[in-house]
């Protein structure tokens, strides 16, 4: 099994380690609820070094990224990041990702750990002349420092004015004495904060500096368990749960990252245009439990009479709302906000209501 550069540190911090996407990763330290609320109200640090980083370089870099992703890369200026996905040639999704416009003719694609190899093979298969690919995943570490107090903590460690880094933009600068750290105002929690990218050699120094700087703010390490509950409260998709090779971005509510402009051609453009015109037959929706219970991945969504109208893709108890929340695909005709649905939880049908995302 692979490990990240922070593996020993996690164990020193008392993390419970689990296998995840081929890596030994921390799932929790002090407890999921405590970690979740630390990020909502204070500041927490996630090791997300298992994520993949793929560079695209060369005179045709833009054309290539346009071809393999659904969002409009030409809309980016240097220093901007963009959420996007790789369509799979059959209307489904290879992976979701962030596209960073790093410098002229150079983009960084940040992909899910579980898909690094699949993504790489897919990109190579669709590669065009003038666009060079480099898989830097094993050399780059990533920390996400998230929460309302993240900026105050990180500002102690850099001269870069963090307030000037707007949401979904980044800069490359000196951080904790280390040059060339990518400081990105992005995250998967909805709590604000930054994601930092740097070479593995600096992992120890940067972790220590952040935890020293954040001591008075009560900074804590956060595991994958709380990462999942935090993203779900925001209604963010998780690849493998809410989206996969069989779901269309349009069905997943990712129409906003699927751009059908004239300048942009991409894999599956015609297919998705047709789907858009014909209309989708299922739609990913968020729901809140009215009856007490917790929805889980793969539970059936049913009508009051028990007719199956969908499937839960993600579910948990929301630590903020103290209620069960979930997402799932619903058949056409049952997707309106406010619709009363039922979740089949073992032998019982529990009432829930379709709500607008995010949950909080």
């Amino acid at each position, binding site marked *: 099994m692979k490990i990240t550069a922070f593996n020993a540190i996690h164990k020193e911090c008392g993390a419970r380690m689990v296998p995840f996407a081929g890596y030994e990763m921390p799932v929790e330290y002090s*407890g999921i609820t405590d970690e979740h609320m630390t990020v909502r109200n204070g500041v927490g640090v996630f090791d997300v070094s298992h994520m993949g980083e793929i560079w695209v370089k060369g005179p045709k870099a833009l054309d290539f990224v346009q071809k393999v992703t659904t969002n409009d890369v030409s809309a980016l200026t240097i220093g901007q990041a963009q959420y996007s996905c790789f369509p799979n040639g059959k209307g489904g999704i290879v992976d979701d990702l962030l596209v960073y416009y790093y410098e002229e003719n150079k983009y960084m694609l940040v992909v899910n750990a579980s898909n690094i190899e699949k993504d790489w093979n897919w990109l190579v298969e669709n590669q065009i002349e003038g666009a060079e690919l480099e898989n830097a995943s094993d050399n780059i570490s990533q920390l996400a420092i998230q929460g309302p107090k993240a900026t105050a903590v990180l500002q102690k460690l850099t001269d870069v004015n963090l307030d000037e880094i707007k949401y979904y933009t980044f800069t490359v600068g000196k951080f904790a004495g280390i040059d060339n750290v990518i400081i990105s105002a992005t995250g998967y929690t909805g709590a604000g904060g930054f994601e930092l990218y740097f070479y593995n050699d600096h992992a120890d120094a940067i972790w220590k500096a952040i935890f020293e700087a954040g001591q008075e703010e009560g900074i804590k390490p956060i595991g994958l*368990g709380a990462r999942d509950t935090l993203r779900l409260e925001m209604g963010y998709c998780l690849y493998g749960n809410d989206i996969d090779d069989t779901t269309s971005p349009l069905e997943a509510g990712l129409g906003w990252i699927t751009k059908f402009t004239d300048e942009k051609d991409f894999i599956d453009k015609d297919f998705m245009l047709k789907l858009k015109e014909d209309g989708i037959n299922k739609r990913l929706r968020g729901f809140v439990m009215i009856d007490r219970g*917790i929805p889980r991945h793969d539970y059936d969504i049913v009508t009051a009479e028990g007719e199956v109208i969908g499937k839960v893709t993600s579910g948990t*108890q929301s630590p903020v709302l103290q209620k069960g929340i979930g997402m799932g695909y619903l058949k056409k005709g049952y997707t309106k906000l406010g619709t009363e649905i039922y979740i089949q939880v*073992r032998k019982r049908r529990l009432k829930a209501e379709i709500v607008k995302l995010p949950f909080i």
Partner: protein
Amino acid sequence: MNIPENLKYTKDHEWIRVEGEEAFIGITDFAQGELGDIVFIDIDTEGETLEQEETFGTVEAVKTVSDLMMPVAGEVLEVNPALEDSPELVNKDPFGEGWMIKIKLSNVSDIDDLMSAEDYAAIIEA
């Protein structure tokens, strides 16, 4: 690891404390630690007579859900009312305030087949 001597245990990480013909049942300290933050105890078998290893309810943690199994056959007399509003009692005090059900044993002698604290310690340390 806390494993009280005066209880009997199952391989499914339940404990049982016998008081005459009645008994209290809960999950072990090891089990609550593995589950993580417990947010809901779902037991709707009050009044039912269940067989050994039959499911009497489920415990929902943030991350996962797990069935609760009868260590022995018996009638479910009572569900711990405190767990309705404070399921976290199972994390905080699994052998005490976090008890889950009180039962009437079908056969008191069934208890003899369950594990001692020492036997249980051996399986969770293995």
